[in-house]
């Protein structure tokens, strides 16, 4: 249990969970749809990145590492596409983004 790789993996997992929490907090705090998307992208990028890296370190070098890496790669490709689709349909659906530094 005192293996340094295991400890690093634990730290990465906890850090990833912290970023997911921050992203979640951001989704609640942001004023409108578009700014909420920004907060959600923290969960997508930093959250998954750190958690996947942590799991990879924890599993050691084997087939599971390859699978986790593929999962990470596909998540990193598909989530921005989904976020883009949401933002585009929102803008074309005449949802006006709040501009400037006005706060609600």
């Amino acid at each position, binding site marked *: 249990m005192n293996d340094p790789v295991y400890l690093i993996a634990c730290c990465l997992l906890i850090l990833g969970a912290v*970023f997911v929490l*921050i*992203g979640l*907090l*951001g989704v609640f*705090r*942001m004023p*409108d749809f*578009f*700014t909420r*998307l*920004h*907060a959600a*992208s*923290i969960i*997508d*990028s*930093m959250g998954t*990145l750190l958690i996947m890296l942590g799991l990879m370190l924890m599993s050691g070098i084997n*087939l599971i590492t*390859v*699978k986790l890496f*593929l999962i990470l790669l596909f998540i*990193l*490709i598909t*989530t*921005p*596409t989904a*976020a*883009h689709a949401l*933002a*585009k349909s929102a*803008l074309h659906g005449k949802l006006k*983004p*709040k*501009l*400037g*530094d006005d*706060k609600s």
Partner: protein
Amino acid sequence: MLIILTSLWLLLSGHYTGLILSLGLISILLVSVLSIRMQLLDYEQPDSFRQTVYSIPYGFWLLKEIVKSNIDVSLRILNPALPIKPQLYNLKTSQRAELARVSHANSITLTPGTISIDVDDDSIEVHVLSQSGLEGLLDGEMDARITRVEDRSYG
């Protein structure tokens, strides 16, 4: 492509019973038929091996940018005053191929604080969360790096 899909299936499943293998065969054929119907094959293909190799340094650079902007946006969220200044900006791009443009738009969206909303032939409509995010885009480094990868993989 069939070879790649088959090896991917064998790598990921790890089961070699008749049922699983025949399910794999069906999915591989389905994916192939769909790709051909969507005309994804032979579609402005550069040398994909060189493209992959040249994309690796870009991936590491993008990772660094993602970490930086993540920390920036996280601090903004945790700040009680919520210091944000959302803006729409029409960013000029210099990529020619569609794949490179999509990569650019996806990189922008993947970086927290910036979301690409609309992609045109020579520009991307971007929604930015704060002034610092906009400045990060305006220095044009991401654009230059993707164009370099594109030039090299076609060259």
